[in-house]
């Protein structure tokens, strides 16, 4: 096992030691300090891959897990997984440092918090480095589970539990879909490895399962990355502690879907369904998220919808980038390679500025006790450093220079402009919608970023509305957002450092079929007066106008769209399903034994009679039957009369006696058919059961003892006749089809083999003695059962009397 795996499993291994640390060291020092060393060391370890990966090398590591099933933990370090690995560990370190100051050492159950967080981190690392599809799925579900635990960290709150449940239901739904898609992919290619699938693309792309597999994989990606309409779990997940929101719901977990789409682009890309789903859903999510973010008054909810919208943007860019697979090497292909680059670039940028903003919200919440912008305002003079960081993050999210959001937004506009002129997949007709929607959504984005920054920090300072005495946050809390904020500015001025060492290698793993030259061209081309710049200027102008007039339209927007939410649909759907299944279950699980018997018998009749009719099984063959004697006829007539008497008897004594008569006639039959042992036994057993029936009758309660015949019900009549018919037909048909010689001849040697002249007895005690042994055990248990039932009852009665 290589050193790589030591670092890969470090979070999960160290999670084991958290309770120990918590018990013995937490009194002295916040255990977050120890935890922060874990992602930091992995981050430093991963850094050393950068030069090699940038030079085009990749690394593959394997551990045998279940070799006989080809289940091995195969890890693959290439540009894409390294980008994600660095994000996970880098942001992870900063978030843990932040959480040291955010989470109280005394009041919080810190060991739970850090175990879940490390579990999540390990799952996320495993996910991005996995090359084996099923192992990837395993880590995928582990992220869902650990995220569920983290969202419900304050489990005594109802809203936390509900948010966690919602997130789990939706992401696991997608996870199962994705598993189905993975299995289809494995069936098509007969390999588990993503790399080998990419190497054998022609098998997969001409297969009938291609589209179903694609849809299932996309379901997983869309639910995890909160795309429309599955994004509704993300705002509810904001009940988690802010470090969790900042880490999982902005920088890492929600990007797992993005990672999956990027990873699968070489497999599915270049197909029109893929393009329209990824780019189309992405841009709808962008618009939906930005519009809904405007309606929010809670800062965290606003950021949640903003995350949804930004994820939509990245998804849309990935969809546009997949066109490069369609065009292949060449000029048009190169144009769309830029879109994929932009996706990666924005992915990185989003992690930086959204992490910053969440931490800022955490600080505001921590220092003022409020998260609602209607109560906040004028914090600029009290918290100048926080304000500066928020300004950097907010303006970067809005896409203004000199922050990194500006660069990626420009590239986004360039990509949507290009796609409107691509001229394939029906884009020549409605392709123009892409730039328009993107532009409108960017205006909304700009407006909510302004609201976020200036409604919180600008305006009047109203300390009376806040629950705590406000002052600047401690330096420890500010450390992480400052680092991220500096990164935001640094990337603006030196984007090519990031581009060359991290993003280009990632691009090579998403679009491996493009020539090397197509990656390098446009990374530096972020200058110049073009259509994109005009669009950005328009966004700023209209955005400022809208922000100045928010009083006129914002309240109206909030009021009018109250009922029109997907949440409403989700809640109604969920409770509707519950109501439906309850009513369905109540309808057939009536608790009445008669009904259950009707189900059992009808099922019996339908299956047996149905298959008899379906396979032409009703065939009679009376050739081998023996002759019918006058005794047989007489006895059968007698039995029919006795049976009818049981049915039509008007009191129970009569029914019991008729039943006894029936039993004796059966024993007569045994006599006629030469079965003396059976006749003897039947006679004695019949006597005993009749006596027991009479005993039961004698003990019937006096109160409800009404003497009446069996009430007539048509359903019962039909089912009983059908049942009798089925059994009769089955017996008669089976009788004519003796396929094998009976083995009776063997038992005829009973005297030689067992020393017994009575064959029946020899079979019972010698040839098949095992059955008899178990039968007498059954008998003994029945006797004990009666004994216990009767004696328990009399014991209880005695107890009642002594009381």
């Amino acid at each position, binding site marked *: 096992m290589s050193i790589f795996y030591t670092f890969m499993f470090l979070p999960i291994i160290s999670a084991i030691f958290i309770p120990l640390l918590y018990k013995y060291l937490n009194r002295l020092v916040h255990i977050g300090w120890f935890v922060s060393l874990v992602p930091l060391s992995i981050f430093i370890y991963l850094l050393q891959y950068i030069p090699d990966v940038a030079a085009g090398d990749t690394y593959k590591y394997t551990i045998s897990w279940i070799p006989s099933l080809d289940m091995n933990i195969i890890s693959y370090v290439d540009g894409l997984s390294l980008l994600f690995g660095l994000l996970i560990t880098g942001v992870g370190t900063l978030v843990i440092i932040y959480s040291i100051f955010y989470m109280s050492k005394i009041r919080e159950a810190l060991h739970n918090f850090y175990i879940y967080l490390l579990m999540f981190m390990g799952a996320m690392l495993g996910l991005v480095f996995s090359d084996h599809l099923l192992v990837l799925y395993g880590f995928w579900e582990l992220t869902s589970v650990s995220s569920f635990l983290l969202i419900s960290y304050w489990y005594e709150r109802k809203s936390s539990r509900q948010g966690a449940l919602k997130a789990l239901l939706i992401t696991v739904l997608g996870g199962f879909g994705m598993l189905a898609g993975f299995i289809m992919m494995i069936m098509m290619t007969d390999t588990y490895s993503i790399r080998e699938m990419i190497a054998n693309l022609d098998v997969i792309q001409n297969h009938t399962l291609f589209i179903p597999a694609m849809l299932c994989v996309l379901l997983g990606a869309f639910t995890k990355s909160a795309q429309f309409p599955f994004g509704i779990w993300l705002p509810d997940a904001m009940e988690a502690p802010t470090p969790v929101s900042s880490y999982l719901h902005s920088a890492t977990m929600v990007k797992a879907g993005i990672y999956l789409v990027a990873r699968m682009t070489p497999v599915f890309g270049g197909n029109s369904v893929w393009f329209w789903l990824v780019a189309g859903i992405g841009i709808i999510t962008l618009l939906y998220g930005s519009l809904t973010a405007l309606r929010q008054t809670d800062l965290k909810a606003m950021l949640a919808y903003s995350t949804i919208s930004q994820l939509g943007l990245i998804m849309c860019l990935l969809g546009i980038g997949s066109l490069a697979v369609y065009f292949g090497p060449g000029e048009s292909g190169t144009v769309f390679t830029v879109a994929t680059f932009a996706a990666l670039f924005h992915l990185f940028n989003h992690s930086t500025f959204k992490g910053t903003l969440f931490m800022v919200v955490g600080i505001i919440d921590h220092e003022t006790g409020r998260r609602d912008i209607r109560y906040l305002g004028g914090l600029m003079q009290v918290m100048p450093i926080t304000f500066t960081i928020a300004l950097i993050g907010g303006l970067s999210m809005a896409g203004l220079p000199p922050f990194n959001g500006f660069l990626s937004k420009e590239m986004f506009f360039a990509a949507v402009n290009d796609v409107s002129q691509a001229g394939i997949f029906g884009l020549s007709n409605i392709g123009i919608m892409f730039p328009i929607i993107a532009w409108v959504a960017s205006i909304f984005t700009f407006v909510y970023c302004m609201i976020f920054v200036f409604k919180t920090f600008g305006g009047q300072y109203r300390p009376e509305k806040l629950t705590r005495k406000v002052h600047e946050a401690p330096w420890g809390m500010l450390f992480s957002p400052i680092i991220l904020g500096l990164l935001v500015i640094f990337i603006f001025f030196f984007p090519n450092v990031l581009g060359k060492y991290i993003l280009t290698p990632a691009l090579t793993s998403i679009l491996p079929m493009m020539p090397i030259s197509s990656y390098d061209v446009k990374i530096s081309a972020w200058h110049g007066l073009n259509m994109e710049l005009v669009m950005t200027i328009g966004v700023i102008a209209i955005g400022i106008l809208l922000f100045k007039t928010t009083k006129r339209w914002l309240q109206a927007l909030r009021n009018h769209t109250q009922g029109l939410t997907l949440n409403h649909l989700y809640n109604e759907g969920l409770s509707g399903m519950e109501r439906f299944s309850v009513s369905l279950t109540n309808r057939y699980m009536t608790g009445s034994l008669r009904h259950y018997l009707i189900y059992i018998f009808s099922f019996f009749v339908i299956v047996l009679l149905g298959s008899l009719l379906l396979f032409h099984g009703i065939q009679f063959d009376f050739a081998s039957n023996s002759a019918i004697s006058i005794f047989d006829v007489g006895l059968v007539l007698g039995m029919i009369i006795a049976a009818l008497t049981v049915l039509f008897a008007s009191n129970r004594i009569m029914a019991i006696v008729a039943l006894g008569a029936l039993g004796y006639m059966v024993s007569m039959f045994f006599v006629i058919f030469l079965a003396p042992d059976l006749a003897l036994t039947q006679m004695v057993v019949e006597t005993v059961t009749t006596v027991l029936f009479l005993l039961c009758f004698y003990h019937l309660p006096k109160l409800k003892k009404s003497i009446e015949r069996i009430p007539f019900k048509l359903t019962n009549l039909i089912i009983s006749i059908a049942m009798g018919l089925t059994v009769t037909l089955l017996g008669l048909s089976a009788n004519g089809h003796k396929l094998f010689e009976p083995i009776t001849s063997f038992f005829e040697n009973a005297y030689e083999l067992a020393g017994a002249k009575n064959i029946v007895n020899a079979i019972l005690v010698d040839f098949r*003695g095992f059955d008899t042994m178990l039968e007498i055990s059954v008998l003994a248990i029945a006797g004990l059962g009666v004994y216990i039932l009767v004696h328990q009852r009399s014991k209880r009665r005695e107890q009642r009397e002594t009381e």
Partner: protein
Amino acid sequence: MKFTDVFLQTSTKILVFIIMTFSIFILFAGHHNPGGGFIGGLITSSALVLLYITFDLQTVRDIIPVDFNQLAAGGVIVSVLTGTASFLFHVPFLTQTFTYVDLPLLGNTELASAVIFDLGVYMTVIGTTMTIITSISEDEK
């Protein structure tokens, strides 16, 4: 029982022995003729029931001080042990065997291990039937 039914009691005293003898005959005849442990056990129980009907529960219990639960359990144990004994001779579970022996009084007689197994069946059947019947009749209304 308040009144004494002389006819019933007298005939019962004779009949019980006849029925008992018959049931034991049935038990041992089972190997070659109709009968066996099951039916033999049932007939023995019917003799006991006749005793219960004629006299009362307590009297019969004094005459025949047998715990029928234990009898049933003993029967199952006898049957299982007959099966297990075959392991001593390195043959499969429940392998039965028979042989002919010259006994002092009975002459050339067949001895079969299956009869011991049947004896277990017999004991279980008596034990169970009598447990059920005495339990129910002891139970007050």
